[in-house]
C-alpha cells in the first residue's frame, strides 16, 4: 500500500498528461478558487487587526501603564523634606522601578492648559508631584499609601495603573482575538478545500476507476488531483490577498499619534505579512487534497 512520495515541487512543475485526466469541472474549480479568495481576503483583515492591535498594546504597555503619581501638598517649608522622605520610602518599596520628583518646568507644562503660560508657579501652593514607574510585577498600592501616610502626611498616591491596566489587558485580548480569527480562517480554508477535494474525488469516481482499470498507479491519479487543487487554491488566495491588500491601502493612512482606531492597517514591514497567505493556503490545499485522494484511492482496486 506504499505510494511513491511526491512533493510540492513535482506538483508545481506538473505533468501535462496526468493533468488532462482530471475533468475540468467548472463548478468545483470556481468553488475552490472562490473559497480560497474569500478566505485570503478575510485573512488579510485579520492580520491587519492583530498587527494594529499588537502595536497598540505595545505602546500602551510602555507609555501609559506602570506609572503612578504621588502628590505632596504641604506648607511651603515642608515640601522638600517630605519629598525626600517619599523618595526614600519608594526606594525601599518592592515593585517600584524608579521614582523622581518633577521639576518646576515639568509641573508648569502640566498646568499650562489650566492657567496659561504666565502662571507664577513659585508663588502658588502647587503640590510637588513625584512620578513612580512600576516594575513588571507592580506594587501594592494600599500598602504604599499607608507607609506614605506615616512618613509624609501630605503625600497622596494617585495610582493611574488602576484604570490603565484594563486597557492594556483589553488590547492584548484583542490581539489574541486577531490570532484566533486567523486560526479560524486557516482551519475553515483547510476544511473547505478538504471537503471540496473529497467531493471532487467522489464526483470523479468514474474517472478514477477507469484510470485504475487501464493500469494507472495511485500516485499518477493523486498527483493530477492534488496539482489541480493546489494550483486553484494558490490562484484564488493570490486574488483574495491582492484584493484585501488593495482595500487596506485604500483606507486613509493611520496617524500613529491618534491611537489604535485610525491606525488600523499595516505599517512598515507588516505589509509583507499578507505575502505569506497564498503559499500557506496552497500548502493547506496540497496536504488536504493529498490525504483525501490517497484515502479514497485505497477504497478502489
Amino acid at each position: 500500500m506504499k505510494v511513491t512520495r511526491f512533493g510540492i515541487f513535482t506538483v508545481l512543475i506538473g505533468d501535462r498528461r496526468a493533468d488532462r485526466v482530471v475533468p475540468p469541472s467548472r463548478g468545483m474549480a470556481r468553488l475552490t478558487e472562490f473559497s480560497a479568495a474569500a478566505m485570503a481576503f478575510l485573512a488579510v483583515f485579520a492580520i491587519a487587526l492583530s498587527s494594529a492591535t499588537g502595536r497598540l498594546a505595545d505602546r500602551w504597555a510602555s507609555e501609559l501603564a506602570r506609572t503612578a503619581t504621588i502628590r505632596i501638598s504641604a506648607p511651603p517649608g515642608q515640601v522638600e523634606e517630605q519629598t525626600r522622605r517619599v523618595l526614600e520610602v519608594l526606594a525601599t518599596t518592592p515593585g517600584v522601578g524608579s521614582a523622581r520628583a518633577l521639576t518646576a518646568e515639568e509641573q508648569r507644562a502640566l498646568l499650562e492648559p489650566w492657567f496659561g503660560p504666565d502662571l507664577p508657579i513659585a508663588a502658588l501652593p502647587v503640590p510637588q508631584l513625584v512620578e513612580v514607574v512600576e516594575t513588571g510585577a507592580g506594587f501594592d498600592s494600599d500598602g504604599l499609601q499607608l507607609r506614605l501616610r506615616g512618613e509624609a502626611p501630605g503625600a497622596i498616591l494617585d495610582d493611574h495603573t488602576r484604570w490603565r491596566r484594563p486597557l492594556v489587558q483589553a488590547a492584548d485580548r484583542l490581539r489574541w482575538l486577531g490570532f484566533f480569527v486567523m486560526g479560524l480562517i486557516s482551519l475553515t480554508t483547510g476544511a473547505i478545500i478538504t471537503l471540496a477535494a473529497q467531493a471532487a474525488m467522489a464526483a470523479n469516481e468514474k474517472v478514477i476507476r477507469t484510470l485504475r482499470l487501464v493500469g494507472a498507479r495511485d500516485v499518477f491519479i493523486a498527483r493530477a488531483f492534488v496539482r489541480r487543487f493546489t494550483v486553484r487554491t494558490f490562484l484564488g488566495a493570490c486574488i483574495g490577498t491582492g484584493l484585501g491588500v488593495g482595500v487596506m491601502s485604500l483606507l486613509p493612512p493611520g496617524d500613529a499619534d491618534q491611537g489604535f482606531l485610525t491606525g488600523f492597517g499595516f505599517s512598515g514591514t507588516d505589509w509583507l505579512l499578507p505575502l505569506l497567505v497564498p503559499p500557506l493556503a496552497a500548502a493547506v490545499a496540497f496536504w488536504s487534497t493529498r490525504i483525501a485522494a490517497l484515502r479514497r484511492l485505497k477504497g478502489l482496486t
Partner: protein
Amino acid sequence: MIELEDISYSYGKGPDLLSGVSLSLSPGGFYFLTGPSGAGKSTFLKLCYGELIAPKGTVSLFGRDVRDMTRDDIARLRRRIGVVHQDCQFVDHLSVTENIAMPITAAGQDPGAATRDIKELLAWIGLSAKADALPPHLSGGERQRVALARAVIMSPDVIIADEPTGNVDWEMSLRLMRLLTELNRMGKTIVLATHDLTLIRTMKQQVSARVLRIKDSRVALAGADL
C-alpha cells in the same frame, strides 16, 4: 498465465456466486465464457484481472499470487492485461483518441508514438470519423468498439472482454472477432464473456476456442452440447 485454485466468491453476505473453482488458462488460448445473466461471468473476469480479490483460494496472474501484490503491482499488472469492462468505462471529457491512448499515458509513456496504431484501429472498427468525439456522444455500439480498441492498443499478453458485442450488429461483431483472432494468432490469450451462442458457434469453426460455462456456481468446460 491465469491460474485459479479453489476459488470461492460472494458479494457481501450473499450466497456463494462461485465456489471451489479451479482453473488454469494457458497462454495463447482463446476462451469463451458463457452462462445465464447473473451467473457470475463478470465476477469471474474481475477475479482474473485483480479488480476483485477472492477471500478463499488463490488467483495467480503471470505466476504471482494477487494477494501478495501491492496496489502499484496491480497497476503494473493491468498494463499486461487489456480489459473491456461490461460498462465500457471512459474518461468522459477526453476524446476517443485520448481514451484509446489512456493505457499508454497511464504507463507513463508518450501516447504520441501510438498515433498511427490508433488510426489503424479506428479504421478497422469503423470509427475514423469519431476520433475526436467525446465518449458520451457515441452510440452504445460505438462505445463498445472504442473500449475494445483501448484494451488492445498496448498489445497486452492477455485480453479480457466482457460482452464486447452486446450492442453491435452481426457484421461488426464478426469484424471485432477477426481482430481478436488475429491477436490470438500472435500469441495473446483471449478471454471473452458473451451470452451470444450463435457467435460462439460461428467462432469455434475458425479458431480452436474453448468454451467455459458458468452454472450453479461452478465453471466447467462445455463440450459438444453447446
